[in-house]
Every structure is written in structure tokens, then in C-alpha cells.
């Protein structure tokens, strides 16, 4: 670890901290329908959208209607994506003449992008046409994010409203999130990315003549080796910057290219790398300020922010430390940090990012439900890879996905308040609302569905050598980590992967689709139920027995609840995966 590395990490976080407040206050104005400077541009477009689609913007929805409309919209966009993938060969903007996507892969991808997961069982530059990427994948990047923000706003309204039956209008919240927040941000951001070298064009792939021709020896499936001379390099192109912007700002994470944000065309410079990490955390961090503003408890918003910040710094410290260590199994190589090399575990990392930025990116992308990667998590040291895995297992509440992180965190807040209430023997209250058995039941449902999907699917995959184990790229405990990571990432709607696992099989495409749907929609419904229930409650004035939710004590309790729930659920599985691998590696064992 170096001082410069830590400086970069702290600089990144300071940027997030500075920008969270103005954006958070702006979003509060947007969703409370107050005037903003952007109204001149977006209000006419908003009106036009409502007129064309028949939305009554004054209509208020109960939680059930909000949920049903959200599900209907998700279903329609999911099917549209599936259809376009299956038909892409006949559609325009496909200069490479890529074939229609296979049914199971098309389904997996449609589910993946609808649920804000962006799990990718495919190599984008060899599978998806430019039109498919723009019209369906980038589109979902906008709308799965906008839906996430809308849901978080609905929950905030549930907390702040009293004796109300409704939570707002799904269409209005989604439209305002996408027009006022995501679109202007992405327009500027995409151009900044291009200025650093992210490509944005519709060229067919360029064929470059290699400076030095290569002799390549490949071994076929029949065991025969063939030698060929490679003289050209086919360079994949495309409208990457426009998609990259919303991929990061909407915490989606689905790469335009297979190597994701490690690809020089997706993340060319250290500055573009900083922008990408910043844009992952920006909206989730700002939403804590929005929470404080809309519930008229700004200090509570910052207490939640503080809990997230504590968990972030613990994660990045562990990941950075682990990755800066030399791999004890490699010999005759210089893995030390010097002025002229980053050192550490460089397998699966880019020279321009080095160790600090790779460890930071991995932490940020899994704290949030982004899932973009600028280094390959599969090649991380065992404890370095443990951090992304644990971040997702904690529920992606460390800033988290846009919207999803906040509502996930608020579920833990409900639990923390409940536990505090049990400890002092009073009825728990949260911002003037009594937390009763219905709320806690729904919160527990939310918390339990998550590990059930992860551990259930992982267990089934581990028991099936043909379907589950044959996809593994690495042996020993690392193999368990690969499967565990896949279902954790899918259920958590993260989308990053231990990419060695070959997930483009019928079993993984279908079971991961199921995990993604469970992780998104089965968790949203109990969350909205809590929102609807809270909205209907009376406000009780704070008494001596009220546990304040804006103090450092509350932050500590919240962090404690998150860690205890996560550790109790997942420690046994983790001890057989990354932790065991760490011990074996230092004992000199390889697989």
C-alpha cells in the first residue's frame, strides 16, 4: 500500500461527499414537484410523454397499484428486449452481421438488464449488435435505474406521509427520475468519457495490420495442435460512451465490451476511471440526503450516510491490503511496490490503474449494485475477492444501487430500530411511526429471501457435477467461490462475476435468471408493503423512550445489525471458499 494509493481513495470519497448534498436536495425538489432550473427543458417533454401514453399525473397510487404497475412495465420491457435480441440479425445497425441471440441466453440477458443486474453470460462484442445494445441494453440501464429511484422515493414518502393511503404515481416518479436526473447527467458525462478516449461511433470493426505478425498455436478439442499466423487485429467499435455513462450512473454495470471497464475503449485513462467510480456512488449517496430532506430529518440522512461510509472504508482497506500483497506461489518475480511499478497481484489488472484503483473499483462496484469491473475479481487474492463477495452479501446497502441501496438500507434501519426497542423494552418507533409486527415481518421476509436464493441455488449447483461443476475454471475452494459469487451477484442484482465460470449453459442461464427475478421483484414487494403500511400510520410525538435515529449510537447499531445478519447467514459458506483458499495458499497449496 502507498500513500498515493490512499490519497486517491480519500480524494474519490471526498468528491462523493461534496456532491451528495446538492444533488440530494435537487432530487428532493424533483420528486416533491417543486420548481427546478431544468423545468424549462424537461417539463414540456414530460407533458408530451404523459399525453402520448395516457398517464394522469395527478393520480395517486396505493402501494399495491404501485407494485402492479411496476411489475407490468418490467414485464413489457423484458419481453421487448427478448424479442429484439432474437430478431437482431434482421434489424439495422448490425455491421458485423451478428446472429440472433440463442433463446436461453436472450432470456437471461433480458432478465438481467430488466432487474438492474447486468449479469452477462456472453461476450458483447461478439454477440450483441449496436442496435440491440442501444435500444434494449442501454434503455434498461436508464429505466431499471429510474424504477429503482422511484421505488426508493415511494418508500421515503411512506415514511414521511401520515395517515395517507398512497405513495405517489409510479409513472411520474419514473419519468422524473429519468428526465431530470439521469438524462442530463449522462449527456454531459458521456462527452467527458469520449474526451478521455471512450469510443462513440457506428463503424464496422476496424481491421488493423499488426506491427509484428504472430504465430499462434492452438490445441483443438480433438487434441490436435494447429499453428497459424495472425497478421490482423480486429478492433471492436460502437456507441460505447453513451451506454457507459448510464451503465455507471445507473449502477447497472453491463459492459459494452467483454472486459467491461478494464477495456481501454471503455475506461481509457485514470481520470475516466475516477469519473466512473464517482458516478457509481453519486446518486446512491445523494439519495441519503434526499431521505433526510423529504422526511424533514436531515441528520438521520447523514447518520445513514455515515453507516455506509464506515462499511465502505473497512471494505476498501481489506481489499487494498490483500491485493498489494505478493502472491506467495509465484517465484523469481518482483512483486514489490516501487516508484516504477505498482507491484502486488497484477494478474487480471491493468497497468494504468495498478493496485489501489483496482481494489477501490472492486469495492465501489459491489458496495453499490453496479457490477462493472476494471479488474478481474476471479484473479484477486482470496481475501481481496472476499471483499466484493461480502459487500454483495450484506445486501448492497453500502450506498448500494440507485434506489435499491437506499430501500435495502431502510429495511435494516427498521430492523435496527426494532432491535433497539427490544433492548430497552419500548415499542420501537422510526421517525414518529410505530414499528409493529407487520413491518418487522415484511422486513424479515426481505432479509430472508436473499440468502435463500443464494445458498439454495449454490447448493443445487454444487450437487450437480454435469450441470453445475463442469462450468468451473478453477479448482479447490476457489471453485466454490465462483459458484457462490455467481448466485450472490445474480440475487443481489450486482452483475459482476468471477468470470472464469462458464455461465452460458442452459442450467446457469435459467437458474441465474430465476435468482435475478427473485432478488429484484420478490424483495421489492415486501418493501413496498412496508412503505404502504407506514404511510397509513399516525405520527406519535417523540418521548423519552424513543430511540433517536440521528446519533452516532444509531450509526453503530445499524452497522452492527448489517454485519451480524450478514455474518450469521454467510460465514459458513465463506469459510469454505475464500477463507480456506487464503489459508491453503499460504501453506503453499495450488490447484
Amino acid at each position, binding site marked *: 500500500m502507498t500513500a498515493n494509493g490512499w490519497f486517491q481513495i480519500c480524494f474519490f470519497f471526498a468528491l462523493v461527499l461534496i456532491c451528495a448534498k446538492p444533488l440530494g436536495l435537487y432530487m428532493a425538489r424533483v420528486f416533491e414537484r417543486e420548481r427546478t432550473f431544468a423545468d424549462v427543458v424537461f417539463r414540456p417533454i414530460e407533458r408530451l*410523454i404523459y399525453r402520448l401514453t395516457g398517464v394522469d399525473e395527478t393520480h395517486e397510487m396505493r402501494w399495491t397499484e404501485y407494485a402492479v404497475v411496476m411489475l407490468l412495465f418490467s414485464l413489457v420491457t423484458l419481453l421487448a428486449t427478448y424479442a429484439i435480441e432474437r430478431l437482431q440479425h434482421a434489424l439495422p445497425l448490425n455491421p458485423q452481421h451478428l446472429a440472433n441471440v440463442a433463446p436461453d441466453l436472450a432470456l437471461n440477458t433480458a432478465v438481467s438488464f430488466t432487474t438492474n443486474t447486468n449479469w452477462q453470460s456472453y461476450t458483447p462484442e461478439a454477440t450483441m449488435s449496436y442496435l440491440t445494445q442501444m435500444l434494449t441494453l442501454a434503455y434498461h440501464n436508464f429505466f431499471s435505474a429510474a424504477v429503482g429511484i422511484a421505488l426508493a422515493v415511494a418508500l421515503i414518502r411512506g415514511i414521511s406521509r401520515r395517515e395517507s393511503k398512497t405513495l405517489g404515481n409510479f409513472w411520474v416518479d419514473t419519468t422524473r427520475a429519468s428526465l431530470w436526473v439521469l438524462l442530463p447527467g449522462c449527456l454531459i458525462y458521456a462527452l467527458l468519457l469520449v474526451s478521455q478516449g471512450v469510443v462513440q461511433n457506428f463503424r464496422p470493426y476496424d481491421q488493423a495490420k499488426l506491427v509484428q505478425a504472430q504465430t499462434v498455436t492452438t490445441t483443438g478439442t480433438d487434441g490436435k495442435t494447429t499453428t497459424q499466423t495472425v497478421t490482423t487485429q480486429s478492433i471492436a467499435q460502437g456507441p460505447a460512451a453513451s451506454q457507459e455513462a448510464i451503465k455507471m450512473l445507473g449502477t447497472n454495470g453491463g459492459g459494452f465490451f467483454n472486459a467491461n471497464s478494464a477495456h481501454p475503449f471503455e475506461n*481509457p485513462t485514470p481520470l475516466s476511471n475516477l469519473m466512473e467510480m464517482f458516478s457509481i456512488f453519486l446518486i446512491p449517496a445523494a439519495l441519503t440526503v434526499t431521505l433526510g430532506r423529504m422526511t424533514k430529518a436531515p441528520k438521520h440522512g447523514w447518520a445513514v450516510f455515515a453507516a455506509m461510509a464506515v462499511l465502505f472504508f473497512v471494505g476498501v482497506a481489506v481489499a487494498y491490503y490483500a491485493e498489494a500483497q505478493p502472491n506467495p506461489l509465484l517465484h523469481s518475480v518482483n512483486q514489490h511496490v516501487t516508484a516504477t511499478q505498482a507491484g502486488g497481484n497484477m494478474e487480471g489488472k491493468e497497468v494504468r490503474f495498478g493496485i489501489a484503483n483496482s481494489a477501490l473499483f472492486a469495492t465501489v462496484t459491489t458496495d453499490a449494485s453496479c457490477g462493472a469491473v476494471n479488474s478481474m475479481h*476471479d484473479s484477486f487474492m482470496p481475501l481481496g475477492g472476499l471483499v466484493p463477495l461480502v459487500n454483495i452479501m450484506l445486501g448492497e446497502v453500502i450506498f448500494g444501487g440507485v434506489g435499491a441501496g437506499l430501500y435495502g438500507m431502510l429495511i435494516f434501519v427498521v430492523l435496527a430500530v426494532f432491535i433497539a426497542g427490544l433492548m430497552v423494552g419500548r415499542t420501537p418507533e422510526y421517525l414518529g411511526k410505530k414499528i409493529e409486527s407487520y413491518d418487522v415481518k415484511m422486513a424479515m421476509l426481505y432479509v430472508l429471501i436473499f440468502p435463500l436464493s443464494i445458498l439454495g441455488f449454490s447448493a443445487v449447483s454444487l450437487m450437480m457435477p454435469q450441470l453445475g461443476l463442469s462450468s468451473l475454471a478453477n479448482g479447490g475452494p476457489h471453485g466454490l467461490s465462483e459458484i457462490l459469487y455467481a448466485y450472490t451477484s445474480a440475487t443481489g442484482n450486482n452483475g459482476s462475476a468471477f468470470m472464469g465460470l462458464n455461465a452460458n449453459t442452459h442450467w446457469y442461464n435459467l437458474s441465474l435468471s430465476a435468482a435475478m427475478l427473485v432478488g429484484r421483484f420478490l424483495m421489492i414487494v415486501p418493501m413496498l408493503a412496508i412503505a404502504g403500511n407506514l404511510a397509513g400510520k399516525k405520527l406519535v410525538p417523540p418521548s423519552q423512550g424513543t430511540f433517536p435515529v440521528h446519533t452516532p449510537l444509531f450509526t453503530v447499531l445499524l452497522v452492527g445489525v448489517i454485519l451480524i445478519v450478514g455474518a450469521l447467514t454467510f460465514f459458513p459458506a465463506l469459510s469454505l471458499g475464500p477463507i480456506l483458499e487464503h489459508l491453503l495458499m499460504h501453506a503453499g497449496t495450488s490447484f
Partner: protein
Amino acid sequence: MRRNLITALLYTVVTTVIFGLVYPFVVTGLAQVLFHDKANGQLIEQNGQLIGSRIIGQPFTAAGYFRSRPSAAGNGYDASNSGGSNYAPTSKKLIDRVAGDVAGLQPEHPNTTIPIDLVTASASGLDPDISPAAAEFQVERVAHERHLSEDAVRKLVSQHTEGRQLGFLGEPRVNVLLLNLDLDRLTASK
């Protein structure tokens, strides 16, 4: 329910036009005007022939060139099939590959350990850079092969060494393709 379904259908169509078509076309138009070279991938031409992109690495194995890092993209530096090796740190395949590359490089400097980035595969398989340490390790061999003085080669390397962006971001690095192209020019002009 039926009304909501119709709204969902119409909403999908209308917003797809705005966010799926208008937005990327507007960005493309602006990018092509404002940053034409970068938006198209910073391509390099030599005598009318496209020979690569400034920010996409290429494989170099000849002794007279600076070597790039090992690549797991396709058969190596396949820019239409990017990706890493995804070998675990405890993987035998990783240990064997590194040992093989070490055996190939070690004779150049029997008493120096090899900079780690020179024998590890990058995340993209297209990493255009090596560390300054990895470049310095190869200076002696390249100078010898090209009958150039070590100082001349070292000077070229330092010209191609890019420091941290804005003074503190990222890591110092050397772009291998650009370095090797200039090396060819230097040799040709002699």
C-alpha cells in the same frame, strides 16, 4: 389493469425512442464533432494502412521489440474478444504460465527478478501499457538487438513514460505500441 397494460406498452415505445435512439444519436453527433479522433478509437495509419489503435495493445514477441504483457484475449490481443485469464491466485495454470514466461525472460538479466506486470495477463487482454520497471528490464536486450546504445533506447523509453494523470491519478506507464513504432523510426533513420 388493462388500462395500465396499455400505458406500459405505450410508455415503453415512447421512452425507447427518446432514450434508446435520440440520446445515443445526439451523443454520437456531438462526440464526432467535438472529439473526432477519440470517438473513433484513436486509430493509427502508416502509409495509408491501418496498423492499430493508440490505446489498444498489440502482441510483441520479437527480441528487437519491447514485449507487451501476456494476454488472454482470444489468441492474444484479440480486440474483438477482450478478457482476462480468470486464473485464481492458487491456480496451477497461473503458476505454470508465469514460470514459463519467467524462464523465457530470465536469461536477459539472470540476477534481477522480473517485474510482475511483465508476466501477468491484464484484465482486458488489451492492456496497451507496461510499467516503467518492465520497460527498463528490456532496455538492454532491445538495444543489443537493434545495435543502438542503451542510452538512446532508455531516452526513448523515458519520452514514452507517462506519469500519473493530473499528478496523482493511476500509475506511471509506458505505451508499448507507440514505443515500438518510434523504435522502428529510430532504427530506420540511423
